[in-house]
């Protein structure tokens, strides 16, 4: 066979780049599907965040305690990007807890708390606020208030001037667990509403299966009785994160199904 001149691929590659993505049907559909996924996920998260946000906006501002708990919420934005920096003191224990829980319990333990019955006033936090860090030294006490003021075990202590952030050393301890229970219950209800196996795709089934498994492990860890408040709060937050992702996937699948699309890319058609 003849050998072509060198550099042919470079020419073709540049031509491909200059013509953007190849005009493949699958490429266009996947771009559209990605846009729909992001839009649907944003819509779902906005719905999920609206109720607590509304309560937070409408509640009397117990400035110190309310804003101190806002420090817990920012962790979520970092969780989403996977850039979470964990408290090294807690993280190995949490990992061990989850692993132990997986061995101890095979069925997830779900704690159901009536969503609307928990007092949120003074305790509610905006779900997706800008990070508002609490001074670590001032918020670290033995009580759960300190846990609320800092993202429990999920972020390293951040030394922030009290003048730029709102946490104050002497805060009234606030238990974040009821709020977490409520949020978790809301998300579970949303997942139950959004889930429809008739519109599930292969990719979606894999994603939801993995998220269900992750929630199961977290529930198993939560079933252990010797958890500290900080560990329990951290696990509940992880549960909420997983439920949010699950709600996003389930909602997106239903959205795509309504548009005649699927979460999977187009498959090869065989004539």
């Amino acid at each position, binding site marked *: *066979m*003849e*050998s*072509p*001149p060198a550099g*042919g*691929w470079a*020419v*073709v*590659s540049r*031509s*491909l780049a200059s*013509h953007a*993505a*190849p*005009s*493949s*049907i*699958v*490429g266009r559909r*996947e771009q559209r599907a990605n846009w729909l996924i992001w839009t649907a996920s944003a819509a779902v998260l906005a719905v999920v965040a609206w109720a607590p946000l509304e309560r937070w906006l409408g509640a009397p501002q117990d400035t110190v305690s309310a804003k101190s708990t806002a420090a817990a919420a920012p962790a979520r934005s970092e969780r989403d990007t996977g850039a979470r920096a964990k408290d090294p003191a807690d993280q190995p224990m949490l990992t061990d807890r989850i692993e132990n829980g997986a061995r101890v319990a095979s069925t997830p333990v779900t704690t159901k708390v009536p969503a609307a019955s928990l007092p949120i006033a003074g305790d509610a936090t905006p779900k997706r606020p800008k990070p508002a860090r609490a001074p670590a030294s001032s918020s670290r006490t033995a009580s759960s208030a300190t846990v609320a003021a800092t993202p429990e075990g999920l972020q390293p202590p951040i030394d922030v001037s009290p003048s730029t952030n709102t946490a104050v050393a002497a805060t009234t301890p606030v238990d974040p667990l009821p709020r977490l229970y409520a949020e978790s219950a809301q998300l579970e209800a949303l997942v139950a509403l959004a889930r429809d196996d008739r519109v599930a795709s292969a990719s979606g089934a894999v994603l939801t299966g993995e998220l269900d498994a992750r929630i199961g492990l977290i529930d198993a860890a939560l079933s252990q009785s010797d958890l500290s408040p900080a560990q329990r709060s951290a696990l509940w937050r992880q549960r909420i994160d997983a439920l949010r992702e699950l709600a996003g996937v389930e909602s997106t699948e239903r959205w795509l199904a309504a548009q005649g699309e699927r979460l999977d*890319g187009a498959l*090869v*058609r*065989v*004539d």
Partner: protein
Amino acid sequence: MPPTSSFAIDVPDALLARARAGERAAFEQLYRWFERPVFTLAMRIGGDREEAAEVLQDTMLKVLGRIGEFRGGSPFWGWLRQIAVNEALMRLRSRRRLGHEIALDDEPGLEDHAPLPPAAADAAQLQRALLELPAVTRSVLWLYHAEGYTHEEIAALMQRTASFSKSQLARGSRRLRLLLETGGPSATAKAANTKLEANHA
């Protein structure tokens, strides 16, 4: 036994899926696998390295750009080869060289099944001899012998009849054998070629 085309490379479905998804690494792998068969085909049909390089680029750009249209009902290499053949023949047409073939005579049913002489085993000598043939004749020879196209398929590609393809094959084979047996282009063959091409110009 039908000839084995140099294009007959089994492309895994996973690689095709990655290419359809627009993965650049998959594109490059397909390009590397098929660049020599495409270039060789373009050389055999066009006879010119620069043109063959252009045919290679045009072919691969079309293949990679339209890979989403490949539906998997036939081997991928067959689909790619068809694009390459079309590109090479289109270039011949654009340069008005598609009329350059060995003149037909009135001998019908001119099939030549005799094997090529041993000199054909010398790839370089074979290439030189092929280049001595008119472009169309060379194309018919290559498509038939090397790529396994039937006369009907060749006729469709060249917008001619199957009889034309058979005649070109017969005459081309005889001319090629003569070139190889004489150890190179004889003065007679050169003169004959020049006369034929001048007639069709």
